[in-house]
């Protein structure tokens, strides 16, 4: 290798490495800030108690209401989006395999849905809620968040399914499998790690979004028991507390952010573990 090539190689390695590690540094920086700022407020009370009277002025209590509300909403919405998104992605890749134009049109619409800001989903959910005569509630929040995350779920799973070798698809059909058997037994199994990634992304987006639940789920200091009761969420808990003039309350906002981050980290790790475990039989 001549000298010029060596210099060129070193410069590009440095630039690529810098780009990669600076992303990781941002994550590390966010985590450090959240934990440092919220450290004093992090206590067992934060995750085991609901706000008592005067909590937002520095009184006793925690954000259990928002933790439970967020988990309920994100899990409910993810569940709905699995039931809609999984068959939709499989349908796109198995039944519509010959119909490239329809496939591409559907993908275009899904990408558009993905790009719509969550506040628009919030507004849409709110109008839908009024039309159906519902109040701000857990179920309204779940439905709105499901609308927000289903396109993410479908397109992520779809991207993985579309990389499955055509030979496997053909091998399944050649055996005499129906399209449904090919989709749910073969393609789903082969694309399972992508499915887990899709679920994780959808869940992460659902649990972290504030705008879609602002009008639809409402906010309450109580833990919701029924679907028609309002529910608090962590992003809104952070939002409300961060705007407080009282330093202790602002600290609690960072503590709530730390809890949200920990939930996402745990789910991310679990998803990686599951997808690794179940993709060991995958063909390469």
């Amino acid at each position, binding site marked *: 290798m001549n000298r010029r090539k060596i210099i060129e190689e070193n410069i590009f390695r440095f630039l690529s490495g810098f780009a990669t590690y600076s992303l990781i540094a941002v994550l590390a920086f966010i985590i450090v800030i959240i934990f440092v700022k919220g450290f004093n407020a992090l206590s067992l009370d934060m995750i085991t108690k609901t706000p008592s009277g005067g909590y937002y002025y520095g009184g006793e209590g925690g954000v259990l209401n928002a933790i439970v509300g967020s988990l309920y909403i994100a899990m409910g919405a993810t569940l709905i989006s699995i039931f809609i998104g999984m068959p939709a992605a499989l349908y796109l890749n198995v039944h519509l*395999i*010959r*119909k*490239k134009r329809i496939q591409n049109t559907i993908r275009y619409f899904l990408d558009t849905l993905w790009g719509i800001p969550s506040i628009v989903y919030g507004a849409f959910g709110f109008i839908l809620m009024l039309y159906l005569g519902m109040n701000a509630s857990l179920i309204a929040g779940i439905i709105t968040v499901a609308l927000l995350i289903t396109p993410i779920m479908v397109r992520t799973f779809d991207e993985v399914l579309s990389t499955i*070798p*055509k*030979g*496997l*698809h*053909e*091998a*399944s*059909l*050649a*055996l*005499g*499998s*129906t399209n449904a*058997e090919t989709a749910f*037994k*073969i393609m789903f*199994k*082969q694309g399972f790690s992508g499915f887990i990634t899709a679920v994780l992304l959808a869940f992460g987006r659902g649990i972290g979004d504030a705008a879609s639940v602002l009008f639809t789920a409402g906010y309450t200091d109580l833990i919701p028991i029924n679907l028609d009761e309002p529910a608090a969420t962590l992003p809104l808990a952070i939002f409300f507390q961060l705007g407080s003039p009282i330093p202790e309350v602002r600290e609690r906002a960072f503590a709530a952010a730390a809890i949200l981050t920990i939930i996402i980290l745990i789910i991310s790790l679990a998803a990686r573990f599951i997808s690794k475990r179940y*993709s*060991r*039989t*995958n*063909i*390469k």
Partner: protein
Amino acid sequence: MNSLNNDTMLQEDRDIETSIFEKNSILRISDLNVYAGKHHILKNINLEIPKNKITVLLGPSGCGKTTLLKCINKLTDLYKELAVTGHIFIEDEDILNTSKNIPSIRQKMGLLSQRPYPLPVSIYKNVAYGIKLKGIRDKKLIEYNAEKHLKEVGLWEEVKNRLNSPATSLSIGQQQRLCLARGLAVKPRIILADEPTSALDPISSKIIEDLFKQLKRHYTIIFVTHVLRQATRIADNVVFMDNGEIIEQGNPNELFKNPKSVKLKEYLVDGN
């Protein structure tokens, strides 16, 4: 219950064998044309495939051999750009112009592709999948048949202690035989092999070739290859194709000794 199912299975086996030996040809293709847009890929194909023989489709790459194979098990349906006209009769049923459901037609033949595509499950489940497709649910019967088919392809001794390992942990040659076992589990009458040894080492290739020579007792085999020596080794009947047309066909000894067409003569010279 088990013995009853066993009896039914054996009866089914006998039925298949009887029907195979009734006539001389199992598959007849007439006036088959395939177009991809303006390209005429297969031109007026007329062909009879003799039963319990190895018919080799021979020809240079891109001559339409694989497309012909895909027409036979209707995988051409997956390609929007392909327009297929004509008739393919399997046991007097025109599979190109029928309202019968496609999976049941495809189950009449097994397919081995250029590289093996085991299903993304364990070795055992690969074969069990084929058996279950035939509607068999009895666990004992599935086990019995899985062992039978793995023995049929000479894989049982190699895998019997690791049936639950992923199919991908096998060597490519073993994977190809697993795919064959999975195909046989569906109880096909015909085996379609699309250059099944092209990704394999010479030893694994020989195992597959020997296997086909044994399997022709029970199945009709259509074997696609562009390797002349392979055709000489295994063929009972050779169909030489070029540019989407059948140029010549017949017994390999006669065909290769006295080629009539210029194209085959050239191919023989280049191939040797």
